[in-house]
């Protein structure tokens, strides 16, 4: 039960994080995305493998990212994800709504 809840919360923001990662760092494969999120958040956030790929798949279906097969430096086959124009627009929307959400939560918490 608790496990499901943890995933849910992260799912809502997972899309935001992935989109931001791709916007900042360009085309990346799934493993690199999780590594980046972990390091950029100074280990505060960790992406569960079980939720990453469904989320990436959903974003691909919605047209926010596009994927292509490529080769890594270690000569392995990996699928590279990159942002589309629609994805950029979605990122802007999600950033805006995230800002509203945190602002609202902060105000309520400040009310003593």
């Amino acid at each position, binding site marked *: 039960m608790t496990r499901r809840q943890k995933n849910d919360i992260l799912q809502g923001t997972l899309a935001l994080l992935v989109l931001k990662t791709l916007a900042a760092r360009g085309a990346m*494969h*799934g*493993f690199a995305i999780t590594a980046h999120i972990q390091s950029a958040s100074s280990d505060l956030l960790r992406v*569960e*493998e*079980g939720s990453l*790929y*469904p989320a990436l*798949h*959903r974003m*691909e*279906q*919605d*047209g926010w990212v596009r994927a292509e097969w490529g080769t890594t430096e270690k000569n*392995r*086959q*990996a*699928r590279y994800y990159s942002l589309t124009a629609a994805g950029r627009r979605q990122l802007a929307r999600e950033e805006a709504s995230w800002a509203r959400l945190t602002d609202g939560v902060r105000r309520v918490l400040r009310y003593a």
Partner: protein
Amino acid sequence: MAWLHRFTNLFRADRHSRDLDREMGFHLDERVDQLVTSGMTEREARREARRRFGNRGVMKERTRDADIVAWLDALAADIRQAFRALRANRGFAVVAVVSLALGIGANTAIFSLINAVMLRSLPVRHPETLLSVRMGGTDDVFTNPLWEQIRARGDVFGGAFAYGQARFNLAPAGEARNVDGEWVSGDYFRTLGVPATLGRTIDAADDVRGCPAIAVMSYGLWQTEFGGAQNAVGKTLMVNAHPYTVVGVVDRGYSGITVGQRSQLYLPICSEAVMDGPDNAIDNRSSWWLNVMVRPAAGSTAAQTAARLAAAAPDVMAATLPPDRPPQAQAEYLKQTLTVTPAASGVSQLRLQYTGALRVLMVVVALVLLIACANVANLLLARATVRQHEAAIRLALGAGRKRLVRQMLTEAIVLSLLGAALGVLFANWGARLLTSFLSVRGTAAWLDLAIDLRVLAFTSAVALLSGILFGLAPAWRSARTDPQAALKAQGRSVVGRSRRGVGWALVAGQVALSFVLLTSAGLLLSSFRNLTTTHAGFQRSGVLLVNVGLPDTSTSLPGTILERLRALPGVRSVAFSSMTPMSNRGENTFLVTDSYHPVRKRDGLTWVNHISEGYFSTIGTRLLRGRDIEASDRAGSSQVAIITQSVARKVFAAADPLGQQFRRPMGKQDSAPYEVIGVVEDTKFGSLRDSTGPVIYLPAAQADQPVQFFTVEIRSDIPPTTLIAGVKSVMAQLSPPASLQFTTLSEQVARSLSRDRLLATLATFFGGLALLLALIGLYGTMAYSVARRRNEIGIRIALGAARQRVVRMVVGEVIVVVITGLCVGVALAVVATRLVASFLFGLRASDPATWIASAAVLIGVALLAGAAPAWRAARMNPMMALREE
């Protein structure tokens, strides 16, 4: 395009799954690398990584299922919503479904005919390798000697067989009971791969000279003649008054090799000698009655087979040269070559005659469907405007626009699928009705109209396309609603000028298409009327025809028959002849005189009819000069002939033909001379479309052979069919074993026009239907437009506008739309009427009277449609209109 991705991903599940596997495998490898660098052993790292990943199978499934489940859920919800909406608007639903049912049903009916006549392959083994052998590219009928020559070169083929269309009389005497059947060669059943369901079929050993008379029945005949009894093999059937032994019953699914004919009986070719006696066609080099089909040898192509056949052609033709032809004709015969064409769907006279007509009808029903779709689109548009309020609320509550579009499209497709389901029922009945219109060589056609996959696929495709066609515009309009504006206006608008465009455009389109259909219908109808009233050179009504088949030849019996028939009450005159007009039977001959030697062999060709005295007065042909045949013109006296006017003009030019002589070329020498004793008016013999029918009439008593098969014509004052009983009793006394077949001259002529009747009837029916649909569309759009503009009209009247001005304003809109539609319609009709031009008789496709009449009808109907709404607009009480805010 998200939904498109989802939809296509349903089908790419496999590849998707593999991709996901590879991707997750890569991720796992990377994770393992990372853990190894941080200090774990390889094995521990792998275990840790896999633990973190969780159950890959479950993850994959979750990824995939989320799509499908969501998609199916949304679809189910949309369908439920669609049905709810239809139930709420029952009137609209009924009108829409019925119009669509008519349109889609008509398309399905015509397509199932096209499927049965043109598209379906024969139910035999490997129909795609069957080749039909032809002479000189087009003629596909051969003599038996020719067939035997081809058969002797069997090493060229992987199988060869011959067959001949025939009608067999199963009645031993008296009135004939005809069934369609085929003469077949020994390898027919084996090459086609058609099995027997009882007993055996005909094989090569049965088809040799002097063979016994055996027969194979169809399944249907087995049921009707022997009740499906197991002991039918060995029983005797009387075929054309000859006994035939049944050796087997053919497989149930096979109904003959010719589309349009259901073969009930198969007889070996060699037994034709038994049936036709000394006059048989087995060795006759001038009797053309067999079709030939071959399969390429194993490993050869059709082209190779064709080449080998062409190489053998000169020898084949030389070995079968008919001796009794003029040398010119013989030289032409020897030059003939043999070719092959693919015959996967059999060879069919029905197809040849009706392909053009069926194509025209396909276009007609497509246009009717378009008009019906336009009506439904208009209805949906009107509803979409009304439902703007509802759409605005849904958008405000968070529904995606694409979802809205999808839901309205689903509603449209549900409508069209309902219409299609109803239409299929209607099409089933319609196709059977249409088949009764088809007839070939004077006999009604039979088609296997079982609904197969192709027809169902066609219907579904048409339904889906129609649904998308008329659903797209309203769906789009719904989705473009601005929620705020719509909610504020509360679903009303005072001046809605911008909304008017699409609805009126659709109506203009309907008017255009209706014009095309009306004009085509008018042309075909006039053409048919011309055909039925054209001067044919004989009087059609009131003549009974009796096709008589005597058991053997006789010189005196026909005369006795005529005397006895003359005595029947109500009979005005009686005669007999070897041919009757439009009977699909005929004999030709050539004419030469000392001064007339036509440059082209064909020009000297005429019909020849052997007649008794009184023929012309019975059939109603006017004698212009000279005399009719008399009793004194009999065997032994000098040969005489009566010719038609066109023959007189052609052969004798300006000279008086009476007393002149001509000869008939018969091979090496010409016949004895014939003296012209009379000239009659031109008569049409083969078809009513013939421009002239050159005929020479010779006394039957002077014919080379005594008569055995002839037709008796009886002109009476009472309805001809009432004479049948009397004729039967006379014949029973004079010649009990004779076979009789009854018809009337008017019926025979009408049957020759069946294709034109089909076109005229259907074009008129669909033209009327299109007009009705357009009328409904026009009325609906106008009434709706007036209703929406109640406020505007009320204000105008309140401000002092005369009622007349209001009416003029409303009617003016209608006129503009109709005129626009007519202009487009005229342009379309110019193209469309070219399609029917080849079927017309007695008028051109650009016949102005028809075009003007169609336009007048359309304008009249449009004014009628506009009258009621205009009247209501004029009578409106401005206070009521303004108060309803």
